[in-house]
């Protein structure tokens, strides 16, 4: 296992790094304002639209984009496709940051954050609440992700001592490493169960919104559609990330392996679209797609973004070329993102003339969170053995 990955090295205080750090700091100032002056001071959230992009993007879409670790674990550890092993670590790293930042952003969004731990107190827990299931699962999964990622840290501090700050390399971790290798399989299993639970439940969250959510999205199949699309997005982010870092970090492309991986996509998209369309037809909701309003327009954009990669990736030749691979991965990510925005914001209408568009402050805080994710990712791949060794390409 350990021969597969290597730190890529190089200076980390690059210009992109500094720009990202700037965004992060600006967001930190806005977050401070939010804590002193209230959520209304920086956001356009209202009693009609109590949830905005902090929930729809940072948590709901953000964790789905961070499903790379989950999707790859299904492939490698359940379906036993060991050849994809080199892709596990970068996927896992993106999941660690995606989920950790989502968990942190929940504490920006919830109003009475200092009582957040009430979720874990049995005498407060409401087992009928979908939110409880989502929150507990995400919290546990963040811990599991760090446990799963720890071996990379152990390997890094032992093998690449010289390039790391002294504080990280002070302790001997070989004992811990041994313990970890004994029990890791259990956490990998839990790490597959938890996202299966909460990625579907993220969809179930909107069931109780009833008629406030347009029939284009309100369905008992929300959990299933959210789960399939999250798995899809997990594979898409692995392909996207690999090709993007190949160009950005000037590394060889892993196209053959990614092409094989992309072979799963048409199946997943196909199943997803069959469920999606049949459900609309059976419920008699398809008419709403021709209402020629913002909701119907967004519905078509959402589904076009699913159909485009389906068509592209049906052809085996396309799967072996970097460009169509990249475009279809990007399209799947956007499709899942737009689906989630539609199900949480665009399709949500509380009536009474309420409307919502994110404020500058909301957008900048979300940008800051994304910036920090990328920034931390860059630092880790340069210092720790995460990305596959060049020979593997």
């Amino acid at each position, binding site marked *: 296992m350990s021969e597969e990955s290597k730190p890529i090295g190089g200076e980390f205080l690059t210009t992109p790094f500094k720009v990202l750090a700037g965004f992060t700091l600006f967001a930190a100032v806005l977050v401070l304002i939010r*804590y002193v*002056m*209230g959520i*209304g*001071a920086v956001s356009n959230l*209202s*009693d009609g639209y*109590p*949830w905005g992009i902090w929930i729809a993007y940072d948590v709901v879409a953000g964790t789905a984009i961070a499903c790379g670790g989950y999707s790859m674990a299904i492939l*490698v*550890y*359940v*379906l*036993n*496709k*060991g*050849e994809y*092993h080199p892709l596990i670590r970068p996927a896992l790293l993106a999941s660690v940051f995606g989920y950790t930042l989502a968990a942190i952003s929940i504490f920006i969004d*919830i*109003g*009475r*954050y200092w*009582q957040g731990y*009430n*979720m874990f*107190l049995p005498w*407060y*827990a*409401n087992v*009928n*609440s*979908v*939110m*409880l*299931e989502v929150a507990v699962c995400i919290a546990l999964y963040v811990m599991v992700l760090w446990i799963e990622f720890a071996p990379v840290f152990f390997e890094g501090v032992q093998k690449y001592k010289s390039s790391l700050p002294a504080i990280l390399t002070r302790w001997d971790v070989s004992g811990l490493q041994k313990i970890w290798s004994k029990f*890791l*399989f*259990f956490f990998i*299993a*839990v790490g597959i*169960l938890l996202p*299966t639970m909460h990625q579907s*439940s993220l969809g*179930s*969250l*909107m*069931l*109780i*919104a*009833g*008629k*406030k959510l347009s029939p284009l999205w309100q369905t*008992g199949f929300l*959990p*299933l559609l959210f*789960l399939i699309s999250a798995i899809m997005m997990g594979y898409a982010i692995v392909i996207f990330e690999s090709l993007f870092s190949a160009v950005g970090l000037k590394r060889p492309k892993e196209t053959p392996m990614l092409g094989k991986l992309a072979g799963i996509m048409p199946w997943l998209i196909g199943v997803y679209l069959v469920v999606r369309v049949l459900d609309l037809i059976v419920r008699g909701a398809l008419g709403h797609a021709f209402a020629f309003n913002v909701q119907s327009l967004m519905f078509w954009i959402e589904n076009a973004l699913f159909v485009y990669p389906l068509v592209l990736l049906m052809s085996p030749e396309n799967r072996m070329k970097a460009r169509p691979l990249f475009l279809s991965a990007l399209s799947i990510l956007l499709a899942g993102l737009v689906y989630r925005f539609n199900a949480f914001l665009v399709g949500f209408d*509380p*009536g*009474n003339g*309420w409307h919502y568009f994110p404020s500058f402050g909301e957008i900048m805080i979300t940008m800051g969170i994304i910036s920090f994710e990328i920034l931390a990712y860059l630092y880790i791949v340069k210092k720790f053995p995460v990305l596959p060794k060049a020979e593997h390409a």
Partner: protein
Amino acid sequence: MEIKRRDFLKVATAGSLMLAANVHPSIAREPKDRIKDAVGMLYDSTVCVGCKACVSACKQYNETPTSSSSTDELWDNPLDNDSKTYNIIKLYKEGTGAVKDREKDGHAYVKRQCMHCVDPACVSACPVSALKKSPKDGVVSYDKNACIGCRYCQVACPYNIPKFEFEKAFPVIRKCQLCSHRLEKGEIPACCQFCPTGACIFGKVVDLLAEAKKRLAYKPGELRKYPVERLVGNQVTERVVTPYVQNVYGEKEGGGTQVLYLTGVPSEKLGLPALEETSDAKRSETIQHTIYKGMIAPILFLGGLVYVVHKNTKDHK
């Protein structure tokens, strides 16, 4: 390195159990029945004159601050329920607005506050039981010591009743709790006590429902007695009956509510949403509980996963 068929099947079986449960909600949660001694209100829009005595009484007895919609902030004139306004009177007006309780060229009043649902979406949604329905009288109350401020109750409520203090660093959710602090002392909700016309009366929900149905049978033009403040009390007023829409809003809507409405114009015109008889809480809980019943499916799924992952990680070494 190939997929071992049997192992895959083991995981897939448990996994598809979860999914199957997901797709076919077979263990439907029973609809909630009305609590026997539930209390509530009957608001008769045809009796209401729009004096807003109930609005100021609500503010006085719940100690909520004023809420101004004008720039000079000289008036307490909220446009809708907000974190400072648990109860409000709103106006419907169409065309010339000339005749009261007529849909065309008419106007009508509607009182809006928490409906104290039989099966409240907010109670089902709240992860930390900050919103609870009293098993005794059915009042839906809020506990700020439990609340984490996630605002899922706001997403869930079909009437958009829970309000949040977006302007505060340490916010709480605010909503009508049927003056539970007054009920404890044997008093009735302030809005009912200070309604001069009997448009809003307090009582046991079963009795209020019977009263509402009785009124639906009245002939327009008749002189009838209408109780004031509370259903069973000494005060009554006489008035000439005006036409009703033949529906008690809240008897069945959204699984039923403890605040019932009689109206002269269709309830939808007054902003009361047309809800199905099945509550959203029932739909949501049916699906969620089918998947997670006794945590059996997740535990089976995890068992399968642990077994297969253990085997496969050994293979990789």
